[in-house]
């Protein structure tokens, strides 16, 4: 199932920050993790991921570093900052409230 673009715009940053909560990751790794862990529901267009990461970086929610991989190629790793963790907690609480409210309205999984 493909999520509507407008809905994904709100979900995407939270999902990416949630994935980074467990440790730093690089771009393609995030694409794969989103696809795998959300059962394909949150598989965002790959072109969307990088602007999303840059925006989070501009807001100070994530930070990045370049590391040269075994292949000799430079790879950019992203990690959650303290501000990002705070933001994620805030978003998580909101999502719980939203999910609960939707559940009470009869949407399954609430």
């Amino acid at each position, binding site marked *: 199932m493909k999520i509507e673009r407008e809905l994904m715009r709100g979900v995407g940053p939270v999902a990416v920050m949630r994935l980074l909560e467990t440790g730093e990751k*690089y*771009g*393609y*790794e995030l*694409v*794969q993790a989103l696809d795998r862990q959300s059962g394909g529901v949150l598989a965002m*267009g*790959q*072109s*969307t991921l*990088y*602007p*999303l*990461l*840059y*925006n989070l*970086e*501009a807001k100070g929610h994530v930070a990045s570093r*370049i590391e040269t*991989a075994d*292949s000799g*190629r*430079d*790879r*950019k790793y992203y990690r959650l900052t303290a501000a990002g963790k705070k933001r994620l907690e805030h978003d998580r609480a909101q999502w719980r409230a939203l999910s609960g409210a939707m559940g009470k309205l009869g949407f399954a999984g609430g």
Partner: protein
Amino acid sequence: MTDTNTGRLHRLRYTPLRDLLRGRASGRLDWRNRIAESGLPPAVRSAVARIVRSMRLSRGEKCDVATELIAHFADGLNAGVDADTLVRDFGDERTTARLIRRAKWRQRPLVWQAWTYALRAAAVLAAIYAVLFVRFLIGRPAVSVDYVARLNASTESVAADDRAWPLYRQAILSLGLAASRRDPTLFERVNETEGGDSGYIQIIDATPADPAGWRTLTAWLDAHQDGLAVVRKAAARPEVGFILGPSGSALDPELGWTAASTAPADDPGGGVIAVLVPHLTPKRHMVNLLTADARYALEQNRVDRWPDDIEAILNMGDQRDTPMAISQIVAVGHYEVAFQEVAAVLRTKPHLLSDRQLIALAHRISRVGGDTAASLFSPNRLAAERMMIYDLVQRTFTDDGHGDGRITRAGLQKLAQFFGPAIKSYRDVDIYLPLFGIETYDLMEESATSLTVASRRELLDAYDRLMDETEADLTVPRRELAPDSDPERLSRRSFADRRHDLWVDKKLWPLSGLIPGYERIAVTAERLLGTRDGLVVAIALELHRRRHGQYPATLEAMTPTLLPRVPLDRIDGRPVRYRLIDGRPVVYSVGDDGDDDAARRPVDRNGNADLYGAAQWPGATHPKQPVTEGDWVLFDGRGTNAEPSAAP
């Protein structure tokens, strides 16, 4: 895209300054080389290159993104996905480039972002200015109403026999008052630099005390009785009938008036504002000659001609002339001349007038004006003042067909001409550029200045509001507009306050210099009406003296037999004051200070008694006008050559 460029110059071009300072031509900002050397399949390399190229970012930012995308696709290939699938799944390249560009911009420093927004704002403003500039350049006024014709319409509707101008014109020529045919006896000592017929008639003030001058004057009067008779006849007609405009009465070569108006009909400087009223000067001359003739008549004991001359002068004041403030001010001047002559006779030779003549004179003088300034300066008699502004606006603003429009370039230049260099004193935007000693307009500044001018509708609405309020004020005695009078009127703003409003509202600046001086008009009218009241009382006093052998103790003693009612002091609203000084009657107002100073006039800076020094109305003309000590004497019976005796 697969070719790499490793030339030294090329590397230098893509080397960051920091590396160059360290002596290294790293070329690490060369994103093209980076993609080319990535080892990715051609389809992927092309896709990455297209995205990076269209991002419109700095070389460093492009390099960062290129590095990340190379890693992304390499990771995909390593995960077993084929190149075409990777490129397809990546998404729309243009959208990606746009989203990345925006995200990268957000990462840039605040200073850069502020600068960018400032540049954008400047660009928007420049675009708006460009549009307004073009709009300003193409704006043209449209003259749709011929206000001069409209003003003339009421004059032309008057029957020819009721129009005085043909007779005045005949008299001007026969009396030698025309600029082209001046009588050297009248104007011989006129300073030629004054030009035309604007000079003062030197022999007018001659008296028997100056035998030579008196002989010249009386000889001239004897020789021109026919011409003066024509003036009296003209004065008896209700309308002057002077036709305004380029082809009107002001174009009269025989009188020496060769250019009524040189401005074309659609010129901003044409129309009502350009009309000439050259007849006002010879009219003043004719009034002066009638006054001289009246004095001569008394000297000859011709008490039949004296009233005729006075009546003619008063008639010239009554006569409806061009509906302009200047014409009405001149008309009030005619009344003043007549009043002065009557006052002089009452003071020095009242015995020459019979009771019947005095009573007729009192009735005639009472008919001059009413109780307020509006009786002399009615909207009907000032119609040209509004039309002048309406006409000027239609010649300086565009017309959208619904009563609105904007200032035009030609209009702005015309307005600036009226304001002259003073325009700088209350304008935020300079439109005067002194260049090589010539006041030159700069087009760019003019277009910017046009933004500081209210729209046609705003301007006219403000003007009409001001004129409505001002004209309403003329219907109220000045004393009721003074700040310390009726508290209910305190909310009414003085004319000065209203004019000040125009100066405060910068967008209305074109109006601030074009409003006629109505505050002076009102004061002029009040002074004349006060003088009129004083004369009527003075005539009653003379009649009382004749009947009872002495002046009354109070003015009330004469009512209603000789005086219907005691006139009210035009300053404090109480009955006018009266007292006998050296046995002679003096009628007066308490004056500006509100105190009875026993008919003592204020003294001017030269130490002379100031006739109208105390005839001021606090706050009516200027909120901070200083109070003048002393009284306003309406009639002073003291004087020389008094011969109080019974009338024949």
